[in-house]
Each structure stands twice: as C-alpha cells, then as structure tokens.
C-alpha cells in the first residue's frame, strides 16, 4: 500500500470528475505570491494552509491554519515552511480555497477480499467517527461495478433524500471510477460538503492509498509515495529504498529511534518473527530490516552499513531461516564487507553480533562469518540446528 499526499490525491479525484476545491502546493512564499498574481481565487476566497507532509496530528502541531485571507496565508506559509518536526522538515504547504458549507457527509471505497465496498454516511467530519453505525455500505464482488440504482439506494439507506440522494449516488459513482481505474486500495473523502454557492458536492479532504505495485500501468503517477507511519522517510531509509528499486530481490530498512537491538535478518516472514522475539524478551528494536530474494551482495552491504550506523546499539541480529534460493555465502559476503567497513570507521565498538542461518552454501557462509572472530569482531555464529529465534534469547541474556 502506498499513501499519497493530499495534493496528488486531490489531483486524481479531479481527474475522475470529482469536485475538489482550488488548491496549489508550494515550496516557498515567493511561489505563493506569484501564484496569487496569476490566480484570482487565491485573492478572492478565504484560504486553508496545511503542511503538505506525511505528518499525523497536523492540527495539534499548528500546521493547519484556516479562514485566512491571502496575506495571512502567505504569513502562515512562511511560518510553516522549514519548520522542523522531529526528523521531518516541512518543505511544502498546500493552500486551498475554503468552501462555505452547512452540511458534511462521508464517502469511501475500499478493497476487500471479496471485492470492494462503497461506504456512505449522511454525516461527516468527526461526527462520522463517533457514529460509525450511520455508515451504510454496498458490497461488490470482484470485477463488479456498482449500478447508479444500487448507489442511489445506498444513499437513501444512509438517510439522503430526493435530489441529494441522486447527487450523492453520482458522487459515489465517480469515487468508484477513481478507485477502480487508479488501482486504489482505499479512497476516503471526509467530509464531502454541499457547496453553498452552487449546491454541488465537493471533496474537502482526501485519504488516498494506492497499490504501489500497479505503478507500471499509471504513467501519470508522477508523485512520490509518502511514508505510512506518520513521519517522512529518513535519509538512511530513502538510501536503502533507492537500492531496493534497482535490484533483483529486495532490501528494506526502517529506523526506530531509541532502540538498542539492531536487526539484519533475511526474509519478510522471518524478520517479523525475529522482531517479535526481541520484543518478547524485553529488548528494544532499533530498526526493522530485511533482505530477500537473493539480492546482490553490494545491496546487502549497503543495508549492513545502515544497520551498523544506528546509534546506541548493543546487539545485531543477523538472523534467517533456511533459505530456498538466496545464496548464503554471497549475501553474507555483503554483510561481512559492511561489518569490516563499519569497523574501520570506528563503529561496532562493544556491539555483539549474532548469526543464525541455513540455505544454499550455508556452510561456506557461516564459516566466513565465524572467521570474523579472528579480525576482532564479537560474533557468535549458529547453524540450522539452533532454532530460528534462539539467537535473540542468547543475545538478550548476554547483557
């Protein structure tokens, strides 16, 4: 799943005929000033300014300002751009037109195992979150599109009447078209509002989750995906992503500040079991990492360098199950190079390394790891006869 920020999300909705407020995304006040000269609406309308970053609780952080005239919007943009929130710097703001309205509604489409669901409620904003039973849903089978009649019925079930029920159904049709055509996994508009000026339904805020795997058939997805966990990706993380996008197989890396147990396991499945074991033994994860699909050794080396650079780590868990086709000797070669490099840079002082692995060329790989002892590494190497996560037990007991 890939989260898309508001700006590009609204762009996709607009593409499928959904009314969205006028908006611009800018990286500087100068840009906003210039756009103000070119766009009448920026001068005429009341405006909303929001930090355009993958940040949670923007309201609380003062990164959303509403009901502004253009001057105040410029001041708000100036204030927000460059603000540091944790590891993230605000680099963009989205400035959009305020839509005067009385009523707020809710509409969403989501992917399910059986197909998809269209959700509609005749309340919106925070009201819908506390009145979830007012959300009515239409379940669709795989490959099925909703008919106008079924959506009109859904609207009526949700409490819409007359012309508004028809309008809401039309809105939902467009939502579904956008969802289906854009390989979305989740599309939520909360609130949908009735624009006072012309009585049209407008999408005020959008949550857009796309299927990153479908990027190959969407040449117009010219935006970057946002991190899904309430912060932007760090430099180290984007470095690893850049490697990941280039190689056969995969390497993954996410930092978890404040941890002391670094993870360098193989496999998307085993890596989570290793993380579970660390938590179960009272350890604190310093990161999540994973390499799989027989990646080239240099990619594993880059990953290793990132892991070794994590601050305050005491143990590194080089775990892995018995591989199917990942070459243990080769991938361990990358890890060993990474370790050597880290050591030459003065890292890994007092850090214990724990290794457990099986698979093609396991003996050669494990022997090479064992040999690191002679180079002064504090390393403990185990083979398939030691159960998968036992090295975590040993590592955390060794404290």
């Amino acid at each position: 799943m890939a989260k898309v920020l508001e700006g590009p999300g609204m762009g996709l909705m607009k593409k499928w005929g959904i009314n969205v407020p006028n908006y611009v995304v800018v990286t500087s006040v100068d840009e906003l000033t210039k756009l103000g000269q070119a766009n009448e609406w920026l001068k005429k309308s009341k405006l909303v300014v929001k930090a355009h970053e993958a940040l949670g609780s923007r309201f609380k952080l003062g990164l959303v300002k509403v009901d502004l005239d253009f001057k105040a919007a410029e001041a708000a943009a100036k204030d927000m751009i460059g603000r540091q929130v944790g590891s993230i710097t605000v680099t963009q703001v989205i400035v959009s037109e305020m839509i005067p309205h009385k009523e707020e509604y809710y509409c969403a489409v989501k992917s399910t195992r059986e197909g998809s669901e269209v959700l509609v409620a005749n309340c919106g904003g925070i009201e819908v979150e506390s009145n979830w039973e007012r959300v009515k849903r239409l379940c669709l089978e795989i490959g099925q599109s909703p008919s106008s009649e079924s959506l009109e019925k859904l609207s009526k079930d949700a409490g819409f009447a007359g012309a508004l029920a028809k309008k809401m159904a039309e809105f939902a049709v467009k939502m579904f078209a956008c969802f289906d055509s854009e390989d979305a996994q989740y599309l939520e508009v909360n609130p949908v509002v009735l624009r006072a000026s012309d009585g049209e339904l407008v999408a005020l805020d959008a949550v857009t989750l796309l299927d990153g795997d479908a990027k190959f058939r969407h040449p117009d997805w010219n935006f970057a995906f946002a991190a899904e966990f309430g912060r932007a990706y760090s430099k180290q993380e984007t470095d690893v992503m850049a490697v990941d996008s280039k190689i056969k197989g995969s390497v993954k890396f996410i930092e978890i500040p404040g941890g002391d147990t670094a993870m360098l396991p193989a496999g998307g499945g085993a890596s989570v079991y290793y993380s579970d074991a660390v938590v179960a033994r009272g350890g604190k994860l310093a990161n999540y990492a994973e390499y799989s699909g027989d990646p080239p050794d240099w990619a594993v080396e880059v990953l290793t360098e990132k892991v070794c650079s994590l601050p305050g780590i005491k143990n590194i868990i080089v775990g892995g199950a018995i591989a199917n086709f990942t070459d243990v000797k080769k991938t361990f070669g990358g890890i060993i190079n990474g370790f050597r490099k880290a050591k030459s840079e003065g890292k890994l002082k007092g850090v214990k390394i724990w290794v457990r692995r099986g698979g093609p060329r396991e003996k050669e790989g494990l022997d090479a790891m064992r040999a690191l002892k002679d180079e002064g590494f504090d390393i403990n190497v185990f083979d398939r006869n030691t159960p998968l996560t036992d090295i975590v037990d040993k590592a955390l007991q060794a404290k």
Partner: protein
Amino acid sequence: MSILANKDTRVVIQGGQAGVNAARRMAEFCYLIKRPLNVEAFVYPPDAGKTNEIPYGSGLIAIPVYKSIAEATKNHPTINTSLVYIGADRAMKGGMEALDDSHIKVVSMITEGVPEKDAKILGAHARKLGKVFNGPSSIGIISAGACRLGVIGGAFDNLVLSKLYREGSFGVITKSGGLSNEIIWICSQFADGITTAIGIGGDAYPGTDYVSYLEMFENDPQTKAVVIVGEMGGDLEERAAEWYGAKKRRVKLIAVVSGFCQESLPKGMKFGHAGAKEGLKGEGSARSKSDALKMAGALVPATFGALGPAIKETYQELLKSGQVKEPVEPATLSRLPKTVEEAMKADEVMVAPLIRTTISDDRGDEPCYDGYPASELINKGYEIPHVMGLLWDKRLISKQEAEIIKRIMMLSADHGPCVSGAYATILAACAGIGLSQSVAAGMIMIGPRFGGAVTDAGRFFKYAVDHKMSVDEFLGYMKKNHGPVPGIGHRVKSLRNPDKRVKELVGYVKSLKIKTPCLDFALEVEKITSVKKDNLILNVDGTMAAVLVDIGFPVDSLNGFFILSRTIGLIGHWVDQKRQDSRLIRLFDYLVNYAAPKRREVPPLK
C-alpha cells in the same frame, strides 16, 4: 498421499530464466525421488522453438519452449499444472491464459509485486472455473516423495536433511516463502516430516487461503496435523480459526502468528509482507489472530522457537494413539552428482591438466607474473621491460637491461606506411576491417623478409660466437648451409646512407661498457660484407638480435621484440585511417604488369 501436487502432476512453466532455475531445482527433486522430470514444457514467446537444457543427475534433458499455453498443452496433453514466473506487469495475462486452458487445473504464481486487483481477479476466475490459483508471491508447493513445484525446499542437501524423499504426516501452509524451508526442516526434526507444504504468498489477498487448503488436508488421510505460519494483517488466520472451530476436525492444527512486535512499535509503523497490514481497531493484529486460533482449539506456541516442541508434542500423541507409525528410512538415497570442481575440492577425483603454465597465475585477486603480483611490481618502480623479462625469460632483469629493451622498443615501434606490415594494416583499415584483424594482417607480413629475421640473426651470431668462429669461417658456413646472413643487408640503407637507428643503438650499448660478444662479432661481419656490397650493412634486426643475445634473452623470444614493438605502430596506423575515415583503396591497373596470356576462346568442355 498429498494434496495439490502429486506423482501425476505434469508441469508447464511460464517464464524465462527464473523458470529455468526453478526447473533445475525441480529436476534435483525428481532425481532424489527417482522419478522422471515433471516439467513437460516452457512457455516463453521470445525463446519459442528452442529448448531449455535441464540437468538431471549427470545428464541433460531438453525441454521444449512454446509460444503459448495452448501450443504447450496440445503437444503435451498430460500437463495439468502451470507455474507462472512472468514479470508483474504481464503476470495477470499469463495467469489467465493458463487458467483458461482446459488441461490445467492448478496455477501457482511465483511473481512478486502483482497488483492486488489483478490477483483478486485471477483468484475469482479460478474459483469460478473450479480450479486452484495459488499465489502470487508463492515460493512453491512441495509434496514429500512425490512432487516439487518451484524452488521450495531449497538446495539438494536441504531436501535430504529435511527428509523430503519420503512422506511424513504434517501439512504446512505458510504465507512466508522464506520460512517454508524452516518449517519443513522443523517437521522433519521434531516429527516424521511433511506430506505437502504450500507457500500461499505474503500478499494481502492470496488466490487461495488457508481454509481451502485446510479442507484439502482434512480430506487427505495421510495428513494428521497441519502447521500454519501466519502473519498479522488481513483476516485469513481468523478464517482458519473459524473453520477449525466450526466442527470436530480430523486434522490437528498448530499455528504461529507473527507481528506481536507491532504492539510496541511507534503508532502506524508496520512492516513485513505486503499483506501484513493491521486493520482498524486492532483486527488483524497478531494477538487477535493468535487468540482466535487458540479459542478454536489450535495449538498456538507463544513464540516461533516453541514451534518445534509443539510439533514434537503433537507427533508423540499421534504415535501413542497409533495414528502414525515411526517412518522407515530408505536404505539408500540418490546422491546428486558433483561437478568436477566440487569433486576435486572434496579430493574425490584427480583430473589430468590439459595445459601447464610456468609464467603466470590469475587465480588470486590480481595476476602474478612469474610469482610477482602486478601491483607490487608497479609500486616498486618496475616497468614494461621487466614484465617482458618475467613473462618471456622468467627472470627479473636489471635496470640497465630494461633501459636497453626500452630503447629497442622505441626504435622499432614504426617505420612509416610503406613497409609491408604497416601497408597491410592500412589496406585492411581502408576496407573497413576491425582493429584486431587489421593489426593481424600487418602481423602476417612479419617473416624472413620483413622484421622476422631477429630470431634467426640472433641464432646464427650466437652459433658463431659459441663456436669461436672467425668472420670468414662464419660466412663460409652460412653460404654453404643457409644462404644470406640474416640481420645483414637493407633494401634502401647502405654504408653511405647509414641507418640512424643502428648507430644509435650500437652507440648506447657500447657506452655501457658491458661485454657484448655477439654485437662485436656482428659488427666484424658487417665490415667484411659491406665491402663486398655497400648495402650489406648490419640492419636493425641484426643489431637488436646481437644485443638481446648479449643480455641473455633466449633466441626463440627475439622476434617477439619486433612484433611487440611494431604492434604499437600498426595500431597507430589503423587508428589514423579510422580517424580520417579513409575510403577503400585498390591498385591502379597501370601499377600492374599484366603478363597473363591475351584473351582467347574457351575450348569446348571435354
């Protein structure tokens, strides 16, 4: 017995290299269980009409490649299963093609990164047709002693260690491909091994879920218990729990779920497979799944590490109740033939070497010349002539000798475009011939009349010196046995028009005050011959030869100095013509003396 993959499974593999690699692994398994290869065909349009060579034991089996599934099943009507190794952008089309073929009942997709929508459509299509669509992102399916689909099971040694050559009593269903081997191994160490293990793939909506396979295992009498390796996200584990709890089941269920670490991670942070995404309000969390499975009566060890003992416990119960018997291991197992390299490493074979070398070794991280690493030679100030000394005469020559060689090389690097070698190279360059062939054309000219007299000159001068001959004796000997003296005589140079190169070289060598018996003798010879005819002077070949013999180079290497040096010039001429974009040249007829018979009538053929 087993499910899904058995002794009657016949396979078509859709895809290129990844598919071929899988077929190799499958052939290893077939060899282990002493059954013929189960791969009948490949479908890969770019290679249609060719064959893929799959090693089986010590032999090779050629498997045909077709353009389409229809073509493959028409030629191999026993095919009933397809493995899809096609890229994510074309996987849907390939999967559909396989599902729509009436011969094919099971399609397992290995491709990763398939769009969720495509996977859902494929799954729904298969259900409509009453077929099985497994995956995407599946590592494969393996039934012990019967059939392997994909790389699941790993390397040959692992197949043996995990006792996959014979059936056990445990079924395995796992989302994680990387853990499949681990579970199979655990089942073989803590119990009697597996019946069938299935990788269903780690995507959010796999084509077939746990419940469908649990249903199949329930109906397979050989399978006594099923191990599920789950992950947080989605509701597949909850559905499995629901199925298990719905009524009394014959199979025992053992399950582990990953993702407990989620509870202590910063809010919103998720990782693992694509499907490992927690839903709203904690549903799909590891805890809710694990609780649901426990409630349904499954054995749920607290950690992955406790899985082995849990499997052991179940196995002991099965033994006690008489539902399973201790397995009988086969007396002998097939052993995968080693490659020659592996066998040599294990000291199991001796191979007579084909060639022998005494000058260089490339097996380390850099070449060694006569034992000296190239980089060390560079760093200690040695130069090209020293490398020539090492490779041509297996010795480190002195600084002085190196200087002589350098000068020889510089003096004979080129001699203009008109000499045979350069002219041949230029002619070839103008005909559009490539560098190596054009230089080779020039090289071919080097022989007794052009540049190739160095070795012979050296040989005869040395002969004379070794036999303490006088100049007269030598000339007599040569006239009687060999003819003109190599190294003496020049086409254009003469006593009055001396060759500056010879003067230069002789002057330099003489200034060194070293012993030069051959050069001295050659100069004596010149004194006599040049009186007879003034162009019978010591030429550059002869001078080089005498000097090189004097500094100890073997006679057989001597032409090499000219060849190497002149190569510099020949390359220069080729590049020069190329730079000018020279056109094809041919002789003008006025440069030819046409001495052939005049035109005449051809007589009738007899």
